[in-house]
């Protein structure tokens, strides 16, 4: 649809070919881009599994007529339903009635939402000194404004504490960045964003960085993770059926925030993830990135580095090798490795730095060049030698013409994210697979209001479990 939009903007009539399963999605995308939905021609079927005979017949007898009709159809006006002003009351009712209404309107993620009353939203706005009307960006596919106000609304609905507001704003700023590619948020691999968090705010707001770090259970990690998915539904317009915009084949549950164990990183003189992304030590930073699969846990043991490294590299080889060629094709790569503090400590004790770890993994996780390309679908092709010549791929991918030569599974060292988190008493690590350019890692500094320290001293700040003995 984006290509059709560009053609139309250039004054060239367009018709988009879309298969049946994507019609509702395409119509929603078209409306979001200002394209008349009559300019969509439906191919009836599932093309990848269509027989050659049926494919040919359907094109000749059905699709071509629809294409011609698409060019001939009158240009109907795009319906613009009236939209409420931010402070307009859109519904009144008791708790149950609010839940039913939000479900009907597709404002809910299927779980109960905290009613977003004016009072609830105002409580969130206390934790930012930014204008509620400030536009943070515009989100596809529905081309809607992300504002400080609607961040607060969705933060309330997701069950966040108002004091999470600076984090929520930074998260939305990140997904508004063009490099994050929110326009691919409804793609069929069904990737889910994960939020990485660094800085003193972790402790200030009681984010879990230890045992069970990415399990739902700690209010901060769980509710902020839920907020992002709810925001992508309500503002970006990414909804699974009965909504439109999200064509995940399966989809994933929202991710709890992954906060780094910065004390553990400092103890072994490793930079934090945010520091590696160019931020100063002690800065509050969020990063949002896609993940579309989690590898089985690596259980490793030994007091030297090699037993751990070899298993972690082997897991990358086996779990991530089918995405090497697609990542090359799409020009983006970002996989994440999470190490429990115990594993990070034994590596560091044996002289391994984060950079050294990346280098080891890049050199040792390998796949056959031809085998990697076997995972490409359809007419997608990767020419290693051409990409090396153009400076888009390391020469390590074209050292010979032997199709069985081994190439790196991990496209480069820089794209390997390393975070220290999880149970410090367990010897485990885990890979998260990122989805090339879709949801590319995007970091934002968290802006705190001028009176943040005064707010922190207010009773109840951070929740009833802040600094409790149960916190790990």
């Amino acid at each position: 649809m984006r290509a059709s939009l560009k053609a139309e903007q250039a004054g060239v009539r367009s018709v988009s070919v879309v298969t049946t399963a994507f019609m509702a999605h395409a119509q929603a995308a078209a409306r979001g881009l200002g394209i008349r939905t009559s300019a969509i021609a439906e191919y009836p079927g599932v093309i990848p599994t269509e027989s050659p005979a049926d494919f040919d017949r359907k094109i000749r007898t059905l699709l071509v007529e629809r294409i011609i009709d698409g060019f001939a159809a009158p240009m109907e006006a795009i319906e613009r339903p009236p939209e409420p002003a931010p402070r307009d009351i859109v519904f009144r009712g008791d708790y149950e009635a609010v839940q039913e209404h939000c479900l009907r309107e597709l404002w809910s993620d299927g779980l109960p939402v905290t009613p977003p009353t004016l009072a609830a939203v105002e409580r969130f706005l206390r934790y930012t000194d930014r204008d509620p009307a400030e536009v943070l960006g515009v989100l596809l596919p529905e081309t809607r404004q992300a504002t400080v106000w609607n961040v607060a609304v969705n933060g309330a609905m997701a069950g966040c504490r108002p004091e999470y507001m600076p984090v929520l704003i930074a998260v939305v700023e990140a997904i508004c960045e063009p490099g994050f590619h929110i326009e691919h948020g409804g793609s069929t691999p069904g990737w889910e964003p994960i939020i990485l968090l660094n800085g003193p705010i972790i402790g200030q707001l009681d984010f879990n960085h230890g045992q069970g770090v990415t399990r739902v259970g700690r209010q901060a990690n769980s509710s902020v993770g839920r907020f992002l998915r709810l925001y992508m539904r309500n503002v970006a317009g990414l909804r699974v059926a009965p909504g439109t915009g999200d064509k995940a084949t399966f989809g994933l549950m929202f991710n709890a925030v992954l906060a780094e164990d910065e004390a553990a990183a400092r103890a072994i003189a490793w930079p934090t993830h945010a520091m590696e992304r160019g931020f100063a030590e002690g800065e509050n930073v969020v990063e949002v990135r896609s993940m579309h699969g989690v590898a089985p846990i690596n259980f490793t043991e030994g007091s030297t580095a090699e037993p751990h490294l070899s298993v972690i590299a082997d897991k990358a080889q086996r779990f991530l090798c089918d995405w090497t060629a697609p990542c090359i094709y799409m020009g983006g790569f970002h996989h994440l490795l999470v190490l429990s503090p115990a594993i990070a400590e034994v590596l560091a004790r044996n002289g391994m730095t984060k950079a050294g770890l990346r280098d080891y993994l890049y050199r040792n996780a390998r796949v056959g060049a031809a085998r990697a390309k076997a995972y490409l679908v359809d007419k997608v092709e990767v020419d290693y030698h051409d990409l090396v010549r153009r400076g888009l791929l390391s020469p390590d991918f074209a050292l010979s013409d032997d199709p069985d030569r081994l190439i790196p599974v991990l496209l480069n060292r820089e794209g390997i994210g390393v975070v220290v988190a999880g149970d410090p008493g367990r010897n485990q690590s885990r890979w998260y697979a990122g989805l090339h350019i879709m949801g590319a890692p995007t970091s934002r500094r968290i802006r705190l209001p001028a009176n943040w320290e005064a707010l922190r001293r207010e009773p109840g700040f951070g929740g009833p479990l802040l600094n409790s003995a149960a916190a790990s």
Partner: protein
Amino acid sequence: MTEPHYAIVWPSGRSVFTELPVRERAPDLNGKTIGFLWDWFFRGDELWSVVKQELSRRFTGLRFVDHEVFGNTHGRDEHAVLDALAERLRANGVDAVISGIGA
């Protein structure tokens, strides 16, 4: 005991898409130049080949501009391809495009 009541606000954001200007449609494709924009998926090249045949049976004087001229609308260079699209359409005298494949 009565249940509390809530007055809630809208969780979405203002829609800011730009509506394209209304233009003439093209029921008559005779003598037109038609381009194909493709995302390199879902057998679009095969589809285009058949579409060209069928359109040529129905209309006269058609000229076609294939997808290689414009580039991949979904790959690593998507943004660059779309940024260059207007100029390539003009340079090739394209009157109408078929874009695919959404699937």
